[in-house]
């Protein structure tokens, strides 16, 4: 499944030098794992409905049901930082609940599987919850 099927917001690809900075920056401070499995040079937004939200160690995960152009349902998994880190960015144990409509801006998996590293989550009312440090820093 190509990520390009969800091009609602596609930020310009980062320059090679910006990528190098991002990867170097993550190296000394990576937490549970490195971010090498994610395409940090790609930022993609998908819309969908929350199926499950797990605010727990070692990483916050939530699962989103999306609709393809053909009308088929797909389930995506999204990873955020650990609860103690995202709590300082406004996340709580109740930030997302099944049925919530949200948009997830994320770095997709390099291998094309339906998962991504969250940059930020956008609510229908425009409220934004950041997970990443910036668009080019996980």
């Amino acid at each position, binding site marked *: 499944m190509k990520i390009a099927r969800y091009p609602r917001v596609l930020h310009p690809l980062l320059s090679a030098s910006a990528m190098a900075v991002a990867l*170097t*920056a993550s*190296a*000394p*401070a990576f*937490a*549970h*794992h*490195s*971010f*090498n*499995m994610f395409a940090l040079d790609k930022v993609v937004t998908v819309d969908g409905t929350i199926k499950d939200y797990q605010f727990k*160690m*070692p990483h916050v995960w939530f699962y989103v049901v999306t609709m393809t152009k053909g009308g088929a349902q797909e389930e995506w998994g999204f990873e955020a*930082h*650990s*609860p*103690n*880190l995202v*709590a300082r960015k406004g996340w709580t144990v109740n930030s997302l609940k099944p049925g919530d409509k949200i948009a997830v801006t994320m770095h997709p998996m390099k291998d094309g599987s339906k998962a991504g590293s969250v940059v930020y989550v956008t609510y229908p009312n425009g409220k934004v919850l950041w997970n990443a*440090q910036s668009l080019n*820093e996980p």
Partner: protein
Amino acid sequence: MALALAAGAARSAPDITGMWQYDYSHPPGHPPLTPKAAAVVALHHAATEKGYVRELSNMKCLPTGMPQLMVWRSPIEIMESFGRISIITEHDPGPDEPRTIYLNEPVQPKDIDPSWNGHSIGHWDHDVLIVDTVGFNDRAHLLGGVPRTEATHITERFSLSPDGQTLTDEMTMEDPQMLAGPWTVSLKFARMPNDSERLEAVCELDLDAIQKLDIAAIKPFDVEAQRMSDPSLHYNPGGK
């Protein structure tokens, strides 16, 4: 009178206690590696490109140790009590033991049992806290993924900005086996509000990931994989 002077001197030291957030957006640069260290780092990088994104020590929830415990995305908390400064962390993986910096030991003790955080002694030189740490085990890393050895020696100079809002840890790492020369980095910490909460970040043993791991493949550069291959180094070997 002497006692009063001593107490006065103690009070004049900058107050570095509190919650501090490491500025991880500014990585510390590149270490001068020995050929031996460069080979290990290269193996590690190659494996990362093939999907090795977590170390065995991480899956086992082992500490990260000094100096890595200083550079997480999560805060550190510096506390001071009689004769010592303690630094506690809040991160996954872990749990890291608190760091203790002994202020009343002028020289390093003999016969130090190698440990994750080493043995730290410190003193105030005017407004700078100078800390000397030795006695490390060989199961953790310096910064930048460089393996640590029992010969690692770290000195730190902690200083506070005039406004009290930035703490600088000028850290010099030495290790004749891994570093071609002293490697000095400048770590910056931003003061967090006094009422900042310290949150839990508990690491849980990941048996599933360990079972799927190809121990032989990572053994050349993963010290915990090497230990798993040596029964004498297993956890509690005498009890089995």
